[in-house]
């Protein structure tokens, strides 16, 4: 299975609730990551405020930060290559990258149902 790496902006937590502006997408995405990992996917998340070294050591991520700055995060790499930037993937995209079928996912799966990433 492909490896997916998510480079989060500097969040104080992965749900962002104690941040300044709760991002509904982010909470939904956290749940989607749990869903995919339970199905055997390998999704890793890195938080800029907590693991900046991982950002610095990855040439692709470092170049991205130099070009676009921290405000352009999140950045999603699939097998080390840029798959998405500036927003979190939805469950449909996760399914496409990992090959995990959406069929047995809960009702909120798929595009435009649970979260609002594809409007």
């Amino acid at each position: 299975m492909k490896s997916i790496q998510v480079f989060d902006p500097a969040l104080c937590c992965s749900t962002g609730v104690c941040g300044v502006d709760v991002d509904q997408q982010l909470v939904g995405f956290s749940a989607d990551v749990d869903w995919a990992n339970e199905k055997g996917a390998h999704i890793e998340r890195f938080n800029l405020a907590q693991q900046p070294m991982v950002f610095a050591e990855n040439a692709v991520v470092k170049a991205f930060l130099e070009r676009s700055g921290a405000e352009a995060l999140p950045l999603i790499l699939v097998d080390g290559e840029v798959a998405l930037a500036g927003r979190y993937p939805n469950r449909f995209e996760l399914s496409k990258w990992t090959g995990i079928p959406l069929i047995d996912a809960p009702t909120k799966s798929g595009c435009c149902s649970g979260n609002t990433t594809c409007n």
Partner: protein
Amino acid sequence: MTTPRFLNNPPRFLFFTGKGGVGKTSVACASAIKLADAGKQVLLVSTDPASNVGQVFGVAIGNSITKISSVPHLSALEIDPQAAAQVYRNRIVDPVRTILPESVVRTIEEQLSGACTTEIAAFDEFTALLIDSALTANFDHIVFDTAPTGHTIRLLQLPGAWTGFLEAGKGDASCLGPLAGLEKQRSQYKAAVDALADTKRTRLVLVARAQQATLREVLRTHEELALIGIAEQYLVINGILPQQAVVHDDLALALYDREQLAMTNIPDSLKLLPADRIELKAFNLVGLDALRKLFITDVVLVNDAPETQWLALSAPSLSALVDDIAKDKHGLVMLMGKGGVGKTTLAAAVAVELVLRGLQVHLTTSDPAAHLSETLNGSLENLTVSRIDPHAETLRYQKSILDAQSANLDAKGRALLEEDLRSPCTEEIAVFQAFSRIIREAGKKFVVMDTAPTGHTLLLLDATGAYDREVHRQSVDKEAHVLTPMMQLQDVTQTKVLLVTLAETTPVLEAVNLQTDLCRAGIEPWAWVINNSVAAVPVQSALLQRRAQNELSQIAAVANTHASRYAVVPLLKNEPIGVARLHELAISKN
């Protein structure tokens, strides 16, 4: 009272807690000396940023256990929570400082500059002292001049916090988040938290003043910590004016009555605690002799201060500041400061002064008692009064998030989210949302507020663009915003921040910290207001004269070092409620 009740059969750990300026460090020092004098081996731990522990004992102490040679059996240790937090930040940021772009590094640093980081970094330092270790094995008692907050302890008690964050290495608990560099093992944090909740080992002493506002705050701390199992609690009311000190002095008499009334009306659940009262002393609490006398009640009071030595303090009045503010015709005026310094009263006074100058004013307070807003409402034609209730705003915010997220979370995740939502940041964000609804009125009239977001919150908001979004979302007239709200706050012609403090060491220091925080966000406080000053009124009582004398150096520090302009507001005999007394507060010629 030679031995206060909180020092009867004391357990190993003694924590003194209370808000800045109530005298916790003095009480903690005096307690440590008393225990050491009785032959116990004592370690005194101070986290007071204004710590004069070293000065008291004539030794430089710092961040390692130091023997105090002037007091046999006593050692001391100073922990600087800000420095501890800085060490954390450096540990995370230093390795990437030269590798990642500067703007990215700044983002990371800001994220790690919140109250939570400082709080947990300080707790991390305590942990080593609370667990069994060779370091502290020889001490019979460890006396702390502070205590961890309920929020920190609860977070560390949650199993979800450990599995999610500490064990998996990356986690969901926001307020543990800053501790990516947590060094100790779970068992150590657990042992520390267990020690705190063990009544055989830990006693918490709540330090208050005989004032309604501080007693209310102490009540909150008491209930919060009792709920998480810290059951062994004592109450100390410090700095009470003794009756014999108030003769022939109207102000002292009025203060005495006010204090006695506050103590009579003490909240019921505090009444159940074993309590001590410590009288205000006519001497400064500096030096061993003075500290040894702190718990003695029958110190003879001599009216040793010369009677007519009152020198007119030539400081600007609040009214003079308002003259300058009024020139702008409209704008935002925010009063900032720690709890209990009188922001609400001064916001009301500023609002009344502006109205008296013929201007339109909207006063918004977060006054918990609401009596101030009620007495003012409808009293002046051009004055509108509204209230932001931080508690209600926080509940609304918590509910909206929990409702939206619950479906996605298991029980553990939900517990963690709920705890995150009890963090100090949450209240600030909740209040901020209410705040953004109101500030857009400042283009047409004056908006005066007794609350404001911290520089840290503003910077985070600004970095994510969330602030602009928040304000625009709530704005009806979207075209009207040419400037970003952050620019509005940074522009001194549109926004004036008045920093409120008291003429005492710790409150001034806390105000300096607030100022530093605001400056980080590019907002320079326009003026400082020193409230409740005794030096600004003629007093006969020796005790009050002494207090006035002590205030002078603090007032000078504000005037000469910290503030670009300032005003001094006198302590009044009567609580400043209603238009007439608020006006009196402002115009008082010092």
